[in-house]
């Protein structure tokens, strides 16, 4: 994909190609940061104007005068700002996770939940909501949901890894093992939702859709910490991941053990995504669409693709969350309505590219 026109030195061409990717990545990251500041006060459901958000920010960061209104500070500083920051990090984590999964499984349809995270988390949340069961004794309410979701979302991955250790498996087979377990958990969740009373069913259903209403400063350290550590670890492995693009045999000849790389990547990505998902529910499409957008616009240098996916995911989820606030819907719904056509568009575009070369 590099533009090596005749007469242009190959090395210079490659450098400029990398530079362009780097610029685009930084651009998207800056856009995400600006987006947090610009969008968090947007559609705030109060009588306050959009500009109040800057007054609140000024008050907290620079000690300016506090804006008027009894709940203004609480709503802007304690609800909306952490929600926007969380949205950016959650979007980034899901997108980078999706990107890793697509590389590791060599499947353009893989998403961050490919290891069965969504079904496990859904089941954990459902039993917490519908039955009041907490896997870690003593927890109640929201924390029971979060801890259940986290623990159970890792069960399918554990099974997958067990299969991987016991026998030689192709990536496609692994995905199918994940799907098999997903069906099982899905069935279990459905049963408990069916038996629950309508309000619990509705609660579990809404949890599964993906939402950002319940995040605040309290869970920020966990979400942001998991995302930063996970993403950093993934970025450190970018070289190994880019070798994986050559297929298992190719990776072998280049001195990497594809099985081990796959194992480590699955583990890290799943932990990160599970940590995020247990707070927000399963927000779809960010993780599958963002890497495709990056691939279509920037090319496929793995390191910048990972970073770019993070940035694009953050921007996507921030924008959808802004839309979600306007329409007062869970962000997952916005994502699935917008994501479907977007996904179709991307597929058509890729199809055209593949068949016109």
């Amino acid at each position: 994909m590099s533009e090596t026109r005749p007469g242009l030195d190959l090395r210079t061409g490659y450098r400029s190609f990398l530079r362009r990717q780097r610029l685009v990545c930084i651009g998207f990251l800056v856009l995400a940061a600006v987006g947090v500041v610009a969008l968090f006060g947007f559609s705030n459901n109060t009588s306050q104007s959009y500009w109040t958000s800057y007054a609140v920010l000024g008050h907290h960061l620079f000690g300016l005068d506090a804006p008027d209104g009894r709940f203004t500070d609480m709503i802007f500083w304690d609800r909306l700002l952490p929600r926007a920051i969380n949205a950016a990090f959650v979007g980034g984590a899901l997108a980078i996770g999706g990107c890793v999964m697509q590389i590791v499984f060599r499947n353009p349809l893989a998403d961050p939940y490919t290891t069965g995270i969504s079904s496990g988390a859904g089941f954990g949340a459902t039993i917490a909501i519908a039955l009041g069961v907490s896997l870690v004794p003593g927890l109640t309410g929201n924390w029971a949901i979060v801890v259940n979701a986290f623990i159970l979302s890792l069960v399918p991955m554990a099974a997958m890894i067990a299969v991987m250790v016991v026998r030689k498996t192709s990536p496609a087979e692994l995905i199918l093992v994940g799907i098999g377990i997903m069906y099982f958990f899905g069935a279990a969740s459905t049963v408990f939702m069916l038996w629950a009373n309508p309000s619990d069913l509705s609660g579990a259903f809404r949890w599964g859709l993906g939402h950002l209403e319940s995040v605040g400063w309290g869970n920020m350290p966990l979400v942001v910490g998991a995302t930063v550590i996970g993403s950093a670890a993934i970025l450190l492995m970018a070289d190994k991941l880019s070798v994986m693009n050559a297929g298992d045999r190719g990776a072998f000849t280049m001195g990497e053990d594809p099985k081990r790389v796959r194992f480590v990547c699955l583990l890290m990505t799943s932990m990160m995504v599970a940590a995020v998902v247990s707070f927000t529910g399963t927000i779809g499409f960010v993780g599958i669409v963002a890497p495709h957008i990056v691939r279509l616009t920037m090319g496929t240098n793995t390191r910048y693709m990972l970073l770019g996916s993070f940035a694009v995911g953050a921007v996507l989820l921030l924008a959808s969350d802004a839309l979600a606030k306007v329409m007062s819907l869970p962000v997952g719904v916005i994502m699935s309505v917008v994501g479907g056509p977007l996904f179709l568009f991307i597929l058509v575009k890729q199809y055209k590219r593949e068949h016109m070369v």
Partner: protein
Amino acid sequence: MRLFPQRSPVAEGGDAGFREEYRNYVWRKVLFILVLALAMFVLLGYSVTVSGRDMTFWDGIMAIVDHLAGVTYDRLDDPVRFWNDYIVWNSTMPRVLGAVVCGAGLAVCGAAMQVVLNNPLAEPYTLGVSSGAVFGACLAIILGFTFGSLGTYGIIGNAFLFALVPCAIIIVLVGIMKGLSPVTMILAGTAVSYFFSGLTTLMMVRTDDETLTSSFRWQIGSLSGIGWDNLWIIFVGTVACTAVLMAMTKYLNVLATGDRSATSLGVDVTKVRYTILIVSSLMVAVILSFTGIIGFIGLLAPHMVRTILGADNRYVIPASMFLGPLILLFADTISRLLAEVDLPVGIVMMFVGSPIFLYILLGRRGRRMMYRCRRLVPASI
């Protein structure tokens, strides 16, 4: 398990030996199908007698025999027999027959889809039929929008009409893009179903808890809605569509060799693919709109058959036609045995189906399957 060793058909004994060998080959397959059919009827007989009532197997059978012979009981003189007859004939019979018809339809449809889309993981719902149906049903349940009368038939009519929309979209796409490859068709189906389920979620989120519950319940496959009044619709639809699919099995065999060689053998690939897709979508739409989503049968039954019979579609389709009902009857019987805990057949199928799915996958056949669909495994469902 290798019931039918795949030996080279050219055995000793020249032409006569060859004929002999082929005759055996066919005979074994026919025998297998007959055994399946017999097993299905035995399970059917047992299943009819499982109901909420305290009644033995023979009581159930006698109730049917008597009813067919025209014997009637008085409600006051012989209440036990009267109610046996009533329950068996009016509630269990249509439901069990419905299980047979739906199971057969879904399994045959899955077998055809897997060949036509050239993907071992294809199933009747691959092209988005179910998402369309659920959207239609939710439109009726939540927004009260139907093309005709309200009530149950409004929901069913909506589900049926919208179930055909994804198929129509794909056919239009094929027309615009001058023949899509099966891969792109599946992707387009996935995208269409994403879109529909997005809209469905949108409706479900906005509604109140009770309506949400009923639309959630509608999606889960259940045979309890089938009665004499609607069984004939499903029956006619399924039989007609199955007949068409059966007539096309020889094309399916040619199609399985790949598009190019099928074309060179004189088969109009696009036409066959179109016809089969339309017919299967119609059949699934009819079934789906009465039962909701019953998964796994269309995926598993053909594979289980292929494990034993090999991939010859002239036998795979009829064998699936008997194995599908066998599985669905089994699941429905479990569902009725556990009637107190309210376990719709769709959920039983999920619990029964996922281990079988994993088993087939990790077995010897799984390997080959995997190789064929390595690029196109749907990542999440």
